[in-house]
């Protein structure tokens, strides 16, 4: 198990290294003078631009700049925002609780809803329940996030509010340590905005793996031992069916922790995603690169977590 983990961790480091090169060459190595020009402001003289280039170290050889940048990343120095002069790393970290609340809550809801739905649908493929679940899943899956978000907003905030009924908050974020209840109420609609899509994906996924599992000899053997269908569906066939879902869930969490741009925008959540958007709109290079690297780290780390979780659920994986 330890060797397995070390091997996976090594592979993850390699991936991060490659990502860092890609990010660096995409954003930095492209056009140093244009960066300097933007930084120097409109109508700056050539001398000023050259001076800015020198100040930012853009005139040095690329490998030196790269090493300097990576060295910064490793010591958690992501540079400062060109615009606000605030350190990028601290800004991301301060926005992380909002993003993490959104990501983890949404995925939790999606899993809790999708696993029973998918399992029940798998029990009788083609039944009314199965088809209902499929239709719901495909609707959730194919509706764009902004549509779901705006739909929830319209019905559960705007219409309820207009009728004078108690409604959900229209947006914003309350840290959990300030008021758990307000945190929960503020997060509920954003959670479902993200979760509806994932419920569709997961339910269909669980359904198809469960259908395969229910056909295996070990399920028949369990029946021959007198195990009930409920026990088979809820435990004996569920555990082997969940292993592949772990991959999906882990990668989704990794992706969401990197920031959910649309959902955070709709619900006014000050998370990593909205920070990245601000960075892009302002051409704030350090912010963009910082958030991208941050998202990459989450995805790679979650990949690693998935591999380990997979090995914990399915003991055969440890041998490979």
């Amino acid at each position: 198990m330890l060797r397995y983990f070390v091997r996976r961790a090594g592979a993850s480091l390699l991936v991060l290294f490659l990502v860092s090169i890609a990010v660096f060459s995409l954003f930095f190595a492209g056009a140093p003078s244009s960066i300097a020009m933007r930084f120097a402001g409109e109508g700056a003289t050539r001398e000023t631009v050259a001076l800015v280039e020198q100040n930012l170290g853009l005139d040095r050889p690329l490998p030196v700049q790269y090493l300097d940048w990576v060295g910064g990343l490793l010591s958690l120095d992501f540079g400062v925002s060109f615009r606000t002069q605030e350190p990028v790393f601290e800004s991301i970290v301060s926005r992380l609780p909002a993003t993490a609340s959104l990501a983890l809550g949404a995925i939790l809801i999606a899993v809790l809803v999708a696993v029973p739905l998918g399992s029940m649908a798998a029990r009788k493929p083609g039944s009314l329940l199965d088809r209902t679940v499929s239709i719901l899943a495909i609707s959730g899956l194919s509706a764009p996030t902004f549509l779901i978000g705006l739909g929830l907003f319209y019905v559960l905030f705007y219409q309820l509010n207009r009728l004078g009924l108690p409604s959900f908050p229209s947006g914003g974020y309350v840290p959990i340590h300030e008021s758990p209840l307000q945190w929960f109420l503020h997060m509920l609609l954003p959670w479902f905005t993200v979760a509806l899509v994932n419920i569709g994906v997961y339910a269909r996924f669980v359904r198809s793996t469960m259908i395969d599992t229910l056909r295996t000899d070990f399920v028949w053997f369990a029946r021959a031992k007198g195990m009930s269908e409920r026990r088979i569906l809820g435990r004996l066939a569920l555990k082997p069916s969940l292993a592949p879902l772990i991959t999906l869930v882990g990668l989704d969490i990794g992706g969401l922790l990197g920031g959910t741009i649309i959902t955070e925008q709709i619900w006014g959540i000050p998370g990593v995603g909205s920070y990245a958007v601000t960075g892009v709109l302002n051409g704030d290079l350090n912010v963009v690169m910082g958030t991208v690297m941050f998202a990459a780290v989450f995805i790679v780390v979650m990949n690693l977590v998935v591999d380990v979780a997979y090995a914990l659920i399915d003991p055969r994986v440890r041998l490979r």
Partner: protein
Amino acid sequence: MTIEKMPLALEVDRLSVEFQTEDVTAKAIDDVSFSVGKGETLALVGESGSGKSVTARAVMGLVGDPGRVTNGTIRIGGDDVSRYSPRQWRAIRGARIAMVFQDSLSALNPVFTVGQQLVESFRVHKGIRGSAARKRAIELLELVRIPDAEQRFHQYPHEFSGGMRQRAMIAMSIALEPEVLIADEPTTALDVTVQAQILDLLADLQRERQMGLVLITHDLGIVAQRADRVAVMYSGRIVEETVTRKLFGSPSHGYTTALLGAIPRIDTSIGALTTIPGRPPQLGRQGRGCSFAPRCEFAVAACRDEIPEPIEVDRGHIAACHEWERVRDESK
């Protein structure tokens, strides 16, 4: 001399199973009757697709969709279980009638330890849990001669060798001392030396516990050594049934002789092995006569027109063949 009337371990009477697809209804097994006494071994032989496994599942009450038991009764230890509700079936499955599958690697759950899979029978059926269940599970592993049972208890199926895994599955099947054990090709996936060990183990367990054993196989060598009686299946029907000695000595059905002709023999020097020409009819495509007639060297006109009824050709020897006398005389 009076023979004491004891309930048989398993009695199957005129059992039929149909498979219903959108446009075809196919009889997977038709009018299958056999019985197994306590401590007796009945071999169920036939080629693949002859209905052996469907019979086994039907007797376990486990005919899955789209199959359906359309007729027949099943008695276990004298109790008619054929009208049992799903809940009643669950209570006897694993407890009074149990089954060993062919491939232990796919029949054991890969993500639970062997111990967990053993203990669950005690918990679900008897409410025995915790260290008591654990103790009994380890005793069972020792009973099926698995060395280091304490450690093996905590291992996963893939950490076992093929033979050990088959022993573990047998341990799970006999955990609750069933009256009937159905072994569906229990040694097909194993190499020959291990096969003998597993069959010895089954025979010992059967003797100790007076279980009725239904041994499903296509290996006539195993039949000759291990079975008290044999039922030969072809295309969903039992075509011949008798004690093992008589089946090999005076086969009375065209299919049985063809089957026996396909075994290699060491004591005679015929050139090539006989093969049976043609193939079994597809499900749902059985004609109106004897379904073996198109492949049978003894077939006459009547065989193609009329399904032969099973008749007692000798004491305790049943065959469903119009030409059984000719078949028996010529195969001597």
